[in-house]
């Protein structure tokens, strides 16, 4: 029998050291799930992010943070106190054979310990080091404190998101939740690291990357910057749809079940579209006057835009549950979607077909849990969660004894001296 092994991930063979808090752990997950041997280095006692909920069964504990679990899959974990001489010595030894170091410490911190890129690369010229920090290594804000909400404010996300005055008077700008500032920073940092890795395959040398989350967020508002640069426009927030220089028709409609549907109609209303729309609305007897031949005249359509959107489309959507509208519309070629809460995704047959949900074993609990899977299917080198997030110092023996050659006795001494 031949030994059929699963294909390795595209980053198999890379050793990556992650010295990251909540700002950089997502970037580490992206690298680890694609096959890199990712070693997460936490301070003794564990990374503070282990205290961020939600927690398994709502019991706060550093090994029960679901946020930490999610963002630290496919990593091994060791503890190391870099503020001790031994800690720095071991870090240097690990850095000597690492391909990439991903770090999120405050600017100047690693340099103050003699662990900056210059010093580490002098013993490993192939080393790539990415510092992913809130504002980058230079500039008047480089030492400012931040949080996800702060980045969504300064990056421009909030200025674009919120409510139309008619829907919610005096509403503040709204920051979408979910930690997306960290996602934005992580995506760009991943790109920069990969570009440096590709370059290294040709040039043989590593390099240093100074990545800024503020800049990543400032880059992630689609055309808002272009609207200002080219037209001097400052955009207004609108309920559930694009910012705009002047009000645009709504795209979010309440369905029969009280949830919403995103239906992009305005701007597409030509005679062909209106014919198809009439057929869609007619499936539930809601076409109204839309089948009237007068709607084959673009001028009539233009004069009746509000009637079509605010009466006919709105009433059709109000007559059915959101999921039914979504599938009826999409199967007829309309780019519409149900505004779903995350719980609706678990039963989504399309995600099921793509093998999206993954069972991840937590052997210390004797249980396994369902995790979200991959953004993209790599047909030649699959994405996979190789292990659940590490327990605190779980791989200390593997790394310090088996790799760096310490004895178990020496390891206990390090633990007693709070080096690990």
């Amino acid at each position, binding site marked *: 029998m031949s030994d059929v092994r699963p294909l390795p991930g*595209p980053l198999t063979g890379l050793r990556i050291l992650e010295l990251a808090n909540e700002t950089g752990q997502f970037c580490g997950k992206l690298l680890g799930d694609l096959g890199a041997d990712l070693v997460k280095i936490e301070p003794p006692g564990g990374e503070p992010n282990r205290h961020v909920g*939600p927690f398994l069964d709502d019991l706060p504990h550093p090994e029960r943070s679901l*946020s930490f*679990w999610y963002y630290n899959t496919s990593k091994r974990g060791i503890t190391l106190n870099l503020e001790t001489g031994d800690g720095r010595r071991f870090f240097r030894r690990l850095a000597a054979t690492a391909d990439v170091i991903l770090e999120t410490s405050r600017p100047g911190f690693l340099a103050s310990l003699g662990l900056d890129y210059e010093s580490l690369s002098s013993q490993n010229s192939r080393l790539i080091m990415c510092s992913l920090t809130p504002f*980058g290594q230079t*500039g*008047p804000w480089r030492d400012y*404190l931040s949080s996800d*909400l*702060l*980045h969504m*404010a*300064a990056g421009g*996300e*909030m200025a*674009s998101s919120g*409510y139309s005055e008619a829907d*919610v008077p005096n509403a*503040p*700008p709204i*920051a*979408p939740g*979910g930690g997306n500032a960290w996602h934005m920073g992580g995506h760009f940092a991943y790109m*920069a690291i*990969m*570009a440096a890795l*590709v*370059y290294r395959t*040709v*040039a043989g040398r590593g390099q240093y*990357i*100074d990545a800024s989350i503020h*800049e990543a967020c400032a880059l992630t*508002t689609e055309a808002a*910057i*272009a609207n*200002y*640069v*080219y*037209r001097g426009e*400052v*955009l207004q*927030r609108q309920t559930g*749809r694009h910012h705009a220089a002047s009000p645009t028709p709504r795209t979010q409609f309440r369905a029969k079940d009280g949830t*919403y549907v*995103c239906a992009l109609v305005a*701007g597409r209303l030509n005679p062909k579209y209106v014919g198809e729309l009439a057929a869609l609305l007619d499936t539930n007897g809601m076409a109204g006057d839309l089948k009237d031949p007068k709607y084959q005249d673009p001028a009539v359509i233009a004069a009746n835009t509000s009637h079509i959107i605010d009466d006919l489309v709105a009433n059709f959507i109000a007559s059915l549950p959101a999921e039914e509208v*979504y599938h009826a519309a999409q199967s007829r070629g309309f*780019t519409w*979607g149900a505004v*779903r809460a*995350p719980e609706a995704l678990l039963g989504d047959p*399309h995600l099921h077909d*793509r093998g*999206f949900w993954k069972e991840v074993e937590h052997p210390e609990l004797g249980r396994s849990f369902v995790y*979200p899977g*991959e*953004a993209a299917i790599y047909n*030649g*080198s699959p994405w996979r969660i190789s292990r659940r997030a590490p327990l605190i110092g779980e791989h200390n023996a593997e790394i310090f004894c088996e790799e760096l050659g310490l004895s178990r006795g020496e390891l206990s001494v390090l633990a007693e001296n709070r080096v690990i």
Partner: protein
Amino acid sequence: MSRPRALENIRVVDFSWVRAGPWATRWLGAFGAEIIKIEWPENERGRLPSTTTPQTLEVNLNTSGNFNDTNVNKKSVTLNVRNLKGLEIAKRLIAISDIVIENFSSRVLQNWGLGYDELRKIKPDIVYVSMSGYGHTGRHHHYTTFGPVAQAVSGLTYLSGLPDKPPAGWGWSYMDDTGGMYGAMCALTGLYHRNLTGQGQHIDLSQMVSSVPLNGPALLDLTVNGRESRRAGYPPGNRAHWPGTPLVNNYRGPIVAPHNAYRTDPGEYNDWCVIVCHSDEEWQRLGQVMGAPRWATSPKFVTNSGRLQYQEELDRKIEAWSMTLGKYELTECCQSAGVRALPVQSAEDRVENDPQLRHREMYLAIEHPALGLQNVQNAPFKLSETPAWNHLPSPLIGQHTREIVEGLLGYSHEALCAGFADGTFWPTRRPRFPYIEEMLQ
């Protein structure tokens, strides 16, 4: 600049359009890859309709400001891939390229005869990144998306808003930006893998599916704890927790107060600051910044649990103070005292008023033949050896057809002219821009 480029000698055949695909290849171009954008003027959805053409210019295929920003670092070839001759030219280009990237619906490239099985016959180690709405597999692969639809279906829209109000959602196509990120990430990862192993592959990216992992902690709260997001107090506006609702984590970091947006002087549309205190110490520092008012040290506000319990009153009192300061002034007062605060910034604020972005040269001007000298967004990372930078403005449509067809592929000038006459390089009945006429001289 003679610095080396990370993607020197890498060529990308870019069939993508609108936003997500072009946003992906923009970054590959910034790293130095040669991006050859295949376009067709009758069927173009990134250049037109344009809402970002300067008021002083005519709206046409070459005057969209957003197109310019999204398509710097590229070359444009006009080519009718739906005709046999055009398809043959596309294949010759693919044979000497490294990456093919597109963001059509799931079966379009296959229907053109350019599915992965065909592509690998033309170029065995090609890295093919498809960026469709729902991916190339799965029962809904034929469904289509724009950013807002991907955001809706994946749960991203729902997590933005005030409790008991309709979703506020995202005020732009977040998933066109982020879908673009994933397109570039997939291409770079596939390229790295190819360089190491010699193997190409098809990477099947889905805009809708790639939105789902951005809800990770909420999804684990569901699969592990059984907690649904349709619940009282969720989403909690800008707060970590909505007062008067069960005290649970809402997936935006620690459960703390203050954690909100506050009006600032002079109270115009975008005069807001956000302030967050992660600890009682940070709260004490904010108290000092506010001038140590007595209420800030009253027992109900000294602990985080008290501040959460009396959050409405807390926020009113903070706002009474924040309205006395401008948003940049407030930011500086807070940050210099170790308090987390930043201004809500519009696009104008980012371009004109943000000292950090100015210092980091986030917006630098590039000369565009139709739009003139205009600020373009730069990379959010600085690579010490191979900096990513914008070296070309966006191309005029078909600007590089001759350069690529004659110069790179070696067709004769007569063949080029014949292709223009027979509708391979430009629709025969469509007026041609002067630079196209010049190309045919």
